[in-house]
């Protein structure tokens, strides 16, 4: 070994003694740490021991969750539509309810009406000795509350919780749009989508209640409480206040909504009214409807079964989920396509003899005697099928589909409601893929008048006509005007959102608008008789959608079979024609004729809305 290496070893290399010194230091540190733990034990168990022993003897510290209040829902004018009412829930804390049998017997005496249900619940749940309350009966009502409160000293461990229960103030009003609540299920709890909820809480199941659940729900708080031997709270040790849910102001107008529902009474169908300058939904009704209040305390399986097996589908929001052939309302798309492609201009006329021969097939016009010579405005006004057969044949399916798609058809509008349908705009490629059959020339004629594979929702037509009304802008339909905190701070505002522009020039649009005005104003207009109003300038389009081919329809009429082979009735219109303020889309299933079945509903809505009987009167009333 060289001397330098020795030197290095002496100064740097560690040896056993060096380690021993360091280990000694570590041991000291560990003694200190264990000393701290021992001192703490001494403090807790010897010095403070009696205090903690008393606390443990009474088992008196409990945690209670305080549910947040769910947000309220208002109409656009601030009219309260959905609130929370108090509900009294009867629970038992098993470890406090001693003796259990006697407590239950007493309870059965005081509230005989629930006795069976309570006993069943107790035997079924095998109640043990836990300190967690077990709910015996929800929403017992004020009548049952009084005897229980009066005898609470004979009912140890029985507690009555006052919980907020959802209350839909107007039974069945706008039930499809507002939706309803249901108790959260195990799967939803496990998924963790709603981290603040626990078993027994409610969650939005449909409509706005579902779509905006996270705004409405709020955040629960809690209390650490000291309870006495009977489980009653003696002292609150700590509180975290719950955060109430936000309030929602909808775009719908209560009076217009009520009117729409009244108009649809005893009919099957849907009505959508939109503000064409914003896309705000003024009313959205679907018939038949259901009562949301039935869902509050859990709907019976029998009731539920009846709702879902009803052939008229009351649970379906037909305005956004229902798809129907657009029928003659689609002619505006065909007209736009033909004008934009230069296939016709405003002077182009076709002669309508009442039918059109294509190959060896005859396509009839709805008016068997024929419309004579018509131009595009007259064809729209009188809904001449033959005119559009000519045009449709020249356009072909794919060109028409391009225009339809750009008019917003065939895809969802993006409204924030569940299960919206996108409808269907067929193309040749689609048919080949779907059925394996090539597109037939004759089908070009059918789709030009909105028959065939075309499917649209009432909402899509409302958006499309809204765009025609406002000069070509398609707005996303809005259901929320604003979301505010309880204190009134705005959290979110339903700003208008453009989803597209109609593929039209100003001239084309003016021609189409002229045609739509003539539908109502022209002597021969299809809706003149039913929709024309002396004071209010209404434009629109009727549609009568064949459910089955004419032939089958006749056969069935002969057989006097059930109603469901009759045509669906459409009317989509807006008013005033200049600077429109409202668009109404009406669909009546099996209503026979668009003009007679759907037209009057639309007229009623438009007229009462614009006469100010609707919107303004509520504002006045509120003030």
């Amino acid at each position: 070994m060289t001397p330098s290496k020795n030197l290095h070893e002496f100064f740097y290399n560690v040896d056993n003694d060096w380690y021993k010194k360091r280990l000694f230091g570590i041991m000291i540190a560990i003694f200190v740490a264990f000393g701290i733990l021992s001192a703490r034990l001494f403090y807790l168990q010897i010095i403070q021991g009696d205090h903690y022993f008393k606390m443990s003897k009474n088992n008196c510290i409990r945690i209670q969750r305080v549910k947040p209040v769910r947000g309220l829902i208002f109409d656009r004018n601030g009219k309260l539509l959905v609130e929370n009412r108090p509900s009294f829930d009867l629970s038992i804390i098993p470890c406090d309810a001693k003796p259990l049998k006697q407590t239950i017997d007493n309870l059965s005496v005081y509230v005989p009406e629930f006795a069976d249900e309570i006993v069943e619940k107790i035997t079924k749940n095998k109640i043990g000795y836990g300190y967690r309350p077990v709910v015996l009966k929800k929403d017992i009502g004020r009548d049952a509350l009084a005897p229980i409160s009066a005898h609470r000293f004979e009912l140890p461990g029985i507690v009555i919780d006052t919980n907020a229960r959802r209350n839909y103030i107007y039974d069945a009003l706008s039930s499809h749009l507002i939706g309803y609540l249901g108790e959260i299920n195990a799967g939803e709890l496990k998924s963790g989508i709603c981290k603040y909820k626990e078993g027994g809480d409610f969650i939005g199941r449909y409509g706005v209640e579902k779509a905006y659940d996270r705004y409405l729900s709020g955040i629960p708080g809690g209390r650490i409480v000291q309870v006495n031997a009977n489980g009653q709270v003696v002292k609150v040790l700590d509180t975290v206040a719950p955060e109430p849910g936000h309030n929602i102001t909808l775009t719908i107008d209560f009076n217009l909504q009520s009117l729409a529902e009244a108009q649809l009474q005893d009919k099957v169908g849907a009505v959508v009214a939109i503000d064409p300058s914003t896309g705000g939904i003024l009313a959205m009704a679907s018939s038949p409807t259901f009562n949301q209040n039935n869902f509050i305390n859990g709907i019976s399986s029998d009731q539920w079964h009846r709702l879902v097996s009803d052939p008229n589908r009351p649970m379906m929001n037909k305005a956004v989920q229902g798809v129907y052939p657009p029928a003659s309302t689609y002619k505006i798309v065909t007209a736009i396509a033909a004008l934009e492609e230069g296939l016709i201009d405003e002077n182009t006329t076709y002669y309508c003899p009442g039918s059109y021969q294509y190959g060896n097939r005859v396509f009839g016009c709805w008016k068997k005697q024929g419309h004579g010579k018509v131009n595009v405005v007259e064809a729209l006004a009188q809904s001449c099928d033959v005119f559009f057969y000519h045009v449709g044949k020249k356009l072909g399916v794919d060109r028409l589909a391009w225009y339809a798609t750009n008019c917003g058809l065939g895809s969802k509008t993006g409204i924030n409601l569940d299960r919206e349908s996108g409808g269907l705009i067929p193309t040749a490629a689609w048919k080949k893929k779907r059925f394996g059959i090539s597109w037939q020339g004759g089908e070009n004629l059918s789709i030009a008048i909105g028959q065939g594979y075309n499917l649209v929702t009432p909402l899509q037509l409302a958006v499309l006509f809204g765009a025609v009304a406002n000069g070509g802008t398609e707005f996303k339909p809005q259901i929320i005007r604003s979301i505010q905190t309880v204190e009134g701070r705005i959290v979110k505002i339903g700003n208008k959102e453009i989803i597209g522009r109609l593929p039209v020039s100003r001239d084309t649009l003016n021609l189409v608008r002229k045609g739509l005005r003539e539908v109502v104003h022209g002597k021969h207009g299809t809706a003149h008789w039913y929709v024309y109003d002396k004071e209010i300038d209404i434009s629109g389009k009727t549609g009568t959608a064949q459910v089955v081919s004419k032939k089958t329809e006749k056969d069935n009429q002969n057989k006097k079979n059930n109603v469901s082979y009759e045509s669906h009735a459409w009317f989509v219109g807006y008013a005033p024609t200049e600077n429109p303020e409202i668009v109404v889309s009406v669909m009546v299933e099996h209503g026979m004729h668009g003009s007679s079945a759907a037209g009057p509903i639309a007229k009623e809505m438009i007229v009462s809305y614009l006469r100010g009987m609707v919107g303004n009167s509520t504002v006045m009333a509120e003030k």
Partner: protein
Amino acid sequence: MFDRRLINYFDWGLLGITLFICVIGLVLLYSAVSVDECPLQASIFYKQVLWYGLGLAIMSFSFIFSYKHLDKWAPVIYIGSMALLASVHLFGKHAGGSTRWLAIGPFTLQPSEPIKIAVIIILARYFAHNVQKTGITFRRLLIPMVLTAIPFFLVATQPDLGTAGTLLLIAGSMALFAKIDRRTLICSVLIIIVAIPIGWKVLEPYQKERVLTLLAPDRDPLGAGYHIRQSKIAVGSGLAFGKGYMQGTQKKLSFLPEQHTDFIFSVLAEEWGFAGSIFLLFMFLLLIAFALNIAHGCRDSFGTILSVGVAAMIFWQVFINMGMVMGLMPVVGMPLPLISYGGSSVFTIFIGIGLLMNVSMRRFTKQ
């Protein structure tokens, strides 16, 4: 490879203390799970017996080979462990808000537990090669920092802050034992003091809230605060000699959701009182003292630092777990060594003790 003479040097004392703590653990666990006549609860007890058995088997395996080979294998063990840990992020089982578990057939493994051993081994190797009387300088401290930071972030993002924190504490203890150059030490402390407020600003409000709750459980009276409150009642109500075995009232009402895992010490404190608690504390002190004594008797740097690492692991887990139960420490997921229920935790401690025995047995053998 295995020398029969080694049996003469077998550390019976260490084994005795270990088994004794295990017995205390089983007695406690039996009480902790016999709240209701629930079959699932009983199965926890039998599973723990199985974990102990498997743990002993793993331990025996870990001292067949000389620990001196670990010096060479350390990088392989480390890289393999990191891969295992990373795989949790990819294929891990999600439970209770975090992804910590890896399913292996019918069992689930929590790799963040055995990872501690891998970190101890790699750091022991590094420090053994770099130790010098004047202390390790900053430049040479960079590598162990990276070696610790990788598993730290992998574990912390699961998220398992308790285990991640233990990794830092173990690494820090080992570095301090190997001696850090004075200037480096002062600088490091200064850097940490400066970094904390900067790091604080970077955190999102909800992350800040979580850290604050960790430090002051009163901020979350319905969660951590509630556990601390109930745990303190359980411990305090034990008085000098406890309420008697199986007689704990706090325990019986299941006020603490983790009373067979992280909060099991509260059951002991309640049922056996100050006397029982101090006794267990003493047993752990003895276990750590044995570990340090093994370090003391070892003739090579690697074995010494390895033993100190294992001792640090046991010490920090005992200290944090008990401190948490007594309301001195934030509530983090931290099992009590050998006592809390859980296979991964039991295996890890047994491997550690196996390493200690290994070092102890070979204290007189040359390379």
